[in-house]
């Protein structure tokens, strides 16, 4: 064996030794480091998602007081129960403002669930009878729909019960119930309208208090599944 052959052999042995060191020690560690790098990325993504949820939840927490007030305020438009006395008071107040006589209120059917967008609300049909002039009645109709109206800013202004007028019938009044009236221009207006109530499965605030929500607040998605209400109809007839 010449000296050159020995040098080649030694070089090969050195390379084999270094290759073995690479394969057995360095490469597995580098591979593991690479895998851990992917795990770090996944963990960072998970953390970002969780932090996003926390930020959203904290934003909801900061809005809670306003949201609670809004929900309670919406309860004036759509209460959890029939609240017929409040409806009568509201109508009586409106008629007093418009010089209209509030003659009667009659429940015209059992409460039923509305389909479509109002699936969470139960319907309460009523028939109201008012007496007044054409334009007084017109203003009254406007006020009946103005109990719950959208504002120009896109918000909701709720001053009373949400009513959907479905039919209106005006006829000259057969008798003038108010003293001093001649009867000319005096009309009887019969209005069929629908009021709404929240489903029985939900309360006004779904168990939330003014300071904190209920731990088991009904989610919005599941709340919409309650579509029917078996609440009996309000049987009310008032003739002031």
């Amino acid at each position: 064996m010449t000296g050159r052959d020995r040098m080649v052999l030694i070089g090969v042995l050195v390379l084999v030794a270094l290759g073995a060191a690479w394969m057995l020690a360095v490469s597995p560690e580098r591979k593991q480091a690479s895998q851990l790098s992917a795990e770090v990325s996944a963990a960072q993504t998970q953390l970002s998602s969780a932090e996003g949820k926390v930020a959203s939840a904290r934003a909801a927490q900061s809005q809670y007081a306003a949201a609670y007030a809004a929900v309670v305020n919406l309860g004036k438009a759509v209460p959890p129960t029939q609240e017929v006395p409040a409806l009568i008071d509201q109508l009586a107040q409106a008629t007093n403002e418009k010089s209209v006589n509030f003659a009667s209120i009659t429940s015209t059917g059992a409460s039923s669930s509305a389909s479509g967008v109002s699936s969470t609300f139960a319907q309460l049909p009523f028939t109201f009878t008012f007496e007044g002039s054409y334009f007084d009645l017109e203003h009254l109709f406007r006020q009946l729909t103005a109990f719950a109206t959208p504002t120009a800013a896109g918000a909701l202004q709720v001053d009373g019960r949400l009513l959907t007028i479905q039919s209106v019938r005006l006829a000259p009044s057969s008798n003038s119930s108010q003293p001093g009236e001649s009867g000319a221009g005096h009309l009887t207006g019969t209005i069929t309208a629908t009021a709404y109530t929240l489903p029985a499965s939900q309360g006004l605030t779904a168990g939330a208090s003014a300071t904190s929500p209920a731990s088991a607040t009904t989610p919005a998605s599941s709340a919409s599944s309650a579509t029917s209400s078996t609440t009996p109809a309000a049987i009310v007839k008032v003739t002031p």
Partner: protein
Amino acid sequence: MRAVNLLPMEQRTGQSVGVGRSQGGAYAVLVLVGGLALMAFLYGEAKHQVSSRRTQVASLNEQAQQAQVAAERLAPYTSFIALRNQRMQAVETLIDSRFDWAHVMHEFGRVLPSQASISSLSGTIGAAGSSVSVAPAATSASTPLAGAGSSAATASATPPGSVPTFTLTGCATSQSTVALTLERLRLIDGVKEVTLQSSTAGSASNGGGAAVAGACSGRDASFNATVSFDPLPSAAAAASATKSVSDQTGAASATTTAAPKTSLGSGVTAR
């Protein structure tokens, strides 16, 4: 003369420079040691990376878990906000789906000429059966319309796409006034079509205040017309339309005092 090689035997031709006595083994050892040092450095670096990344993953997982716990703790707030949004949207949709009866009544009073009067006004919105009716004087309306409540149980009183249609019955002093009335009715915002059903002038023999068909007196023409409105928009479109209608209503209210007098029924006069 014989040449003599003065170089030592180990340094003569055929031997690599620097091989020396170890026959290149020293270089091989040096290369091996250097290579192993490099491998040790790379191994250590990789080991450090593994260690630090393990720590980082553990830290991130812990933070994520804490965030999850915090989010779950605050979940009722999120649910409550969702409940609020759902209710507001439902109420807004119901509000937007309403038909503005008051505005239409106001418009009828605003556009009718002073020489014309309405004796009957009935309106229907699509299949919902909603109606406005101003009955003649002979009709008693003291009894509530108990049967009308059945229409209230329908899904929506004014579903999108339904067409509000009103039927007018009234009196005018002449046929020209009837024509003017039809033209004026077209001025109501949202009116799509005004169709005359009939217009019949009273005969001279019925003069002197005697009642005729349609409760018109003398030579007054009794007319019957149908007013069709544009189909009701969807809830989203209605929301934007409500604003414009509201603005127009405000403008119309300002003109109420200047509107012509409209006679309703028999001797019922509205400003």
